[in-house]
């Protein structure tokens, strides 16, 4: 477009773009701020600002819960926990490359094993792992 322009023109062009550009990005992000504010008013948890539990980063919430539970009955269920750990570890050792749902089902089967060799409920567990596409 423009090849040989004098300094003043370049500066005008550049400042022009800067104004439009910064204006646009501030406008868009300000709108998003309003959206977030609105969301906060509508959906924010009432239990906010608790000490020591700031963000429910989903990465951990579930594990924490389980960990807490496990910690709670640690002394009571020590034997059972060891058993569970061993089972899980072994099943992972065996199943290896296979994915989570397998490990889950293996443990369930293990639970069943104690009472009955291979129940139909066990089949259902396995079946439910088939995603539908």
């Amino acid at each position, binding site marked *: *477009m*423009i*090849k040989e322009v004098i*300094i003043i023109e*370049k*500066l005008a*062009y*550049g*400042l022009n*773009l*800067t104004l*439009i*550009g*910064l204006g*646009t*990005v*501030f*406008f*868009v*992000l*300000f*709108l*998003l*701020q309003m*959206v*977030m*504010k609105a*969301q*906060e008013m509508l*959906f*924010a*948890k009432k*239990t*906010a*600002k*608790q*000490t020591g*539990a*700031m*963000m*429910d*980063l*989903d*990465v951990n919430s579930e594990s924490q819960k389980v960990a807490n539970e496990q910690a709670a009955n640690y002394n009571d269920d020590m034997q059972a926990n060891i058993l569970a750990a061993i089972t899980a570890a072994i099943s992972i050792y065996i199943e290896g490359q296979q994915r989570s749902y397998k490990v889950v089902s293996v443990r369930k089967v293990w639970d069943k094993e104690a009472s009955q060799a291979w129940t139909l409920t066990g089949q259902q567990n396995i079946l439910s792992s088939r*995603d539908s596409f």
Partner: protein
Amino acid sequence: MLNQLANLFMETGFTMLTYKHIIMIGIACLLIYLAIVKEYEPLLLLPIAFGMLLVNLPGGNLMEEGGLIYWFYKGVELGIYPPLIFLGIGAMTDFSPLLANPKTILLGAAAQLGIFLTFIGALFLGFSPQSAGAISIIGGADGPTAILTASILDKELLPAIAIAAYSYMALVPIIQPPIMKALTTPEERAIVMGQLRTVSQKEKIIFPVVVTIVTVLILPTAAPLIGMLMLGNLLKESGVVERLSKTAANELINIVTIFLALSVGATATAERFLQWETIKIIFLGLFAFSAGTAGGVLLGKLMSLLTGGKVNPLIGAAGVSAVPMAARVVQKVGREANETNFLLMHAMGPNVAGVIGSAVVAGLLIAILG
């Protein structure tokens, strides 16, 4: 037979090797060294450097029509790879810190100042508006955004821009602290920010949908980047399609990264890279990062003033994106000023806002200059 040997020898790369190739091979090896030993953004810089190496071994013709990397490069040329990287980044990103403190999104806008000042600077250094736009996007501190914009506005400059962008992202811990300290008082840096509120899953799910609608309606050219970023995030936050979000955030982004980086590196031929423009781009890139950092910190100071000292201005520096490096730098500088200061999560807000901000600016530059 001697004749054949002579012919074969004529086809070897040695006979075609010039001092320019040797310089480029040296630069490629230097980048490999920096990527591995100094861990300069190795996910991108290592395959970029290897692509650069391969294309500067004469005779391989990997980038000529029909060559191997010629085909890989199609995904850059057609603008497919960067949005796919953004899909994976979306599936890795947690917008909670931003949702917990919405006003910090404006810091992600202020830090785009670097882009525009660099644009003016590039015009004065003699670049055309298109080239200046491509160069200025380095200030977005976001690799895929820079690669997409450069490949549309001026693909001749693509390798230099990509390498500068990733190098400066790696150098954020060196570039930012002096600027952050120069623009703030020790008291400001010592400000402790309150704990962030809990963000509900509902907010996290609605956010990517609304961002897509608002942003794309205002700036349709931002659709590929913002759309894929938000799709990735929606897949993750929805919690019902874990197998898709995991694949987007792992195998798919990894495969695309290999192809993208290798082919961007392979555009760095001696003829294209050993130019004065490259030197200018390196300086402009440094300026862009610095000005962006300053822009973010200055708005941070203003926010600190307006909120009566509830905002630590340092977190503005994270607005340049360079996720998550810039946020870690904020954490470090903040802790130097005050042992009990934990700014990391507060800095993540502007940090992810900066990704959205620079994608918006990219859309704007493409709309105006493309």
